[in-house]
């Protein structure tokens, strides 16, 4: 079937397949971040319990472990969807390059295996193993989550900078899987993603408890839970600025077209300005309404205000990504990243002066907002790397429209998937809410005795 033909559902197969991928990956990426970040919080909380014997830490770890169990299950199945979809939606891509990117996926398989094994042990052996041994079984989960992310993202990096293979008549005749895994984009992209995972997980946890405190349940449990999540996110935030700058420089060198789209740079020019905001006008070939810092882009990308930055005009229109989406998503990500650092400075200033995080309403509102906003930043970043690579599925090697499946009815699959993912999202929210409503144990320091009344948050 010609991929440009519109089907009964109103989508071209290519658009339907891309939307399908965007929906399922966009969903999974949030759960993956929680799968990387939450185990670290669990290990820290339980470790603090072992050291201080403060029951509040143990309660935190134990209650979070159940929320984590639910999220891990949803993440495991939504990840499985992706392993199937790579072939179902992009058979040409996987049939051609599956072997080249297979090594990191194989290693990721083992990391996921370890994660699954130790999640089972950790969740079900609270009373079966001695406390210290139980704590130790949490560590492989945190390590495997980190490793999984690293391996998976190297394969996405490979799509951005494909290396390590010889292609003859559309068939890979030789491959160097190590070189493919360690492609030029791998370093910056994997670190950027993993730091994002800690940032998102930390903010989602902190945000949930900020909401609880705003609703008047300002318990020591909620305060400590918020602080723990917030510390992880706020440590990650400034690191992310540095890593993000590194990642952008790598993009400038390896994918100049994507870089030009990110920055709304239509013309190739020396002393290119850094544009803050602005709306790219693809018809007119310029970015309007941006605040421009002369030479800023040249300096950021190449360390020299007079450096030449390649514009979109360097490649035919057919090879350009949709500029407006990429530029907008990039601006959103950068703005939010900067705001997270500001929130960190606010917290730090308060801590230096009063040895405590601020507890006034404005601060709690900011923390509450940071949860969903960090997810927005995450998704925006993902849009930058994926939409920015278009029209290529493997940069410069294979076009997305050539890789898409010829199977009919992908539009219907997408419609069905939207329904299924809505159910998954609703189910997860409802179950997490049930867990959060479960009363705290009696006799915790500072807790009112007896079970508390209902009213819930999205945190356990």
């Amino acid at each position, binding site marked *: 079937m010609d991929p440009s033909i519109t089907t009964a559902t109103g989508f071209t197969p290519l658009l339907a397949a891309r939307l399908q991928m965007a929906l399922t990956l966009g969903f999974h990426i949030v759960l993956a971040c929680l799968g990387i970040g939450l185990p670290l919080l669990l290990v820290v909380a339980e470790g603090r319990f072992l050291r201080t014997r403060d029951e509040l830490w143990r309660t935190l770890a*134990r209650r979070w472990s*159940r929320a984590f*169990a639910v999220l*891990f*299950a*949803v993440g*495991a*199945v*939504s*990840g*499985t*969807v992706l*392993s*199937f979809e790579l*072939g*179902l939606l992009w*058979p040409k891509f*996987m*049939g051609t*390059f*599956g*072997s*080249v990117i*297979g*090594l990191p*996926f*194989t*290693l*990721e*398989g*083992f990391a*996921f*295996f*370890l994660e*699954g*094994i130790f999640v*089972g*042990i950790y*969740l*079900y052996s*609270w*009373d*079966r193993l001695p406390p210290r041994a139980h704590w130790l079984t949490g560590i492989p989960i945190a390590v495997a989550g980190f490793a999984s992310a690293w391996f998976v993202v190297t394969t996405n990096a490979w799509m951005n900078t494909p290396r390590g293979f010889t292609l003859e008549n559309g068939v*890979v005749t*030789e*491959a160097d*899987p*190590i070189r493919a895994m360690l492609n030029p984009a791998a370093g910056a992209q994997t670190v950027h993603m993993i730091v994002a995972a800690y940032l998102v997980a930390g903010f989602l946890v902190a945000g949930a408890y900020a909401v609880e405190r705003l609703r008047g349940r300002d318990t020591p449990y909620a305060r400590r839970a918020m602080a723990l999540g917030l510390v992880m996110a706020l440590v990650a935030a400034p690191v992310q600025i540095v890593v993000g700058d590194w990642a952008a420089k790598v993009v400038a060198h390896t994918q100049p077209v994507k870089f030009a789209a990110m920055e709304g740079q239509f013309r190739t020019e020396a002393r290119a300005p850094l544009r803050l905001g602005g709306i790219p006008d693809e018809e007119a070939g310029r970015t309007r309404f941006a605040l421009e810092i002369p030479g800023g882009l040249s300096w950021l990308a190449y360390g020299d205000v007079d450096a030449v930055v390649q514009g979109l005009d360097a490649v035919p229109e057919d090879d350009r990504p949709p500029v407006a989406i990429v530029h907008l998503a990039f601006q959103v990500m950068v703005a939010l990243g900067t705001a997270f650092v500001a929130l960190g400075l606010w917290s730090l200033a308060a801590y230096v002066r009063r040895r405590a995080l601020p507890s006034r309403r404005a601060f709690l509102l900011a923390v509450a907002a940071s949860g969903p906003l960090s997810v927005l930043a995450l998704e925006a970043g993902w849009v930058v790397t994926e939409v920015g690579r278009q029209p290529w599925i493997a940069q410069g090697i294979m076009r997305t429209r050539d890789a898409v499946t*010829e*199977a*009919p009815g992908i539009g219907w*699959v997408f419609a069905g998937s939207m329904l299924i993912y809505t159910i998954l999202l609703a*189910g997860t929210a*409802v*179950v997490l809410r*049930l*867990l959060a409503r*479960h*009363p705290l*144990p009696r006799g915790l320091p500072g807790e009112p005795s007896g079970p508390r009344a209902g009213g819930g948050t999205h945190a356990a």
Partner: protein
Amino acid sequence: MPPETAVAGIILLAVTAYAILAGADFGAGIWEFNTALRAPKRERELIYHAIGPVWEANHVWLIFVLVGLWTAFPAAYAAISRALWIPLLFALVGIVFRGVGFAFRSYAAGAVRQQAVWGAVFALASIAAPFFLGAAAGAVASGRLAVGEGGTYDGNFVTGWVNAMSLYAAVFGVGICAYLAAVYLTREAKMTRDRALEESWRSRALTTGAYMGVLAGTGLALAATEIPALADGFRERAWPLVILSVASGAASLVLLTLRRYTTAAIAAAGAVAAVIWGWGVAQYPALVPPAVTVENAKAPAAVLRAMLWAIAAGGVVLVPSLAYLFYLFKGKRPRETDETGSTAGGDER
């Protein structure tokens, strides 16, 4: 042994592990139907108790199979994805809802109606997943998929997998899961020292086992008449595995009668493993018969070698971890009454 044969063997090993481990988890969900209607609560608790700690690890074997296939034999993966996208999609929906159904059911403690809904989702999805995976496997085994060497497909998206062999394999897949689960659960029931529970699972296992014997005989007859190429493979190479499967299956029934549940579980798993290896050996070197073979679909040698190293290194970490998991939760010792999936959320009451 050339690296592609070694990798193909490892992939088949992973398929086997998925069938005898995750298959039993699906089977537990299938029995949920039976137990939901008329069984006391403790029967269902046994199911949740048994699969709670292990189902996620067992599930990963499938991921391993998929990744192994696309890495080592990308054309085979592309061919299967193209030809069987409908049953695979249905299986995927089953896998998704089995997982979340179980997790939501386990952690929605206290909300009775929600637990009922998610329990039903878990049970239905546990049937759908092995049914459609079985149908896909049957379509491959039938050798009639119009695949090309490079992983192309020119056939029909429905008739490719809606035929006698596919439907047989779908039912057989569900049956395998139900049988394995019944045998394993008999063993677990004995550990609870609840005699009535043990007896009800034992009789379920024996009944299902007898049905499976008949079904397996039908399958051999079907393969012999419908799929000449596969039948030749069985006659020439794979016949010892057929004998092994029949013997193991019969032994598992005898051992159940004798109340030797651990050896019965091993025999039942062995019977299933022998079926899978029999199929694999009979159709070797074809991966997706007739066109896609180990030889023409294999990845470049450097990839296969890297994979073998990765598997060796990964195995060093994986094997002891997996052994520890099963030692902790499936070891031979009386069941303690600690927190488990079914009562998760209950420790602080």
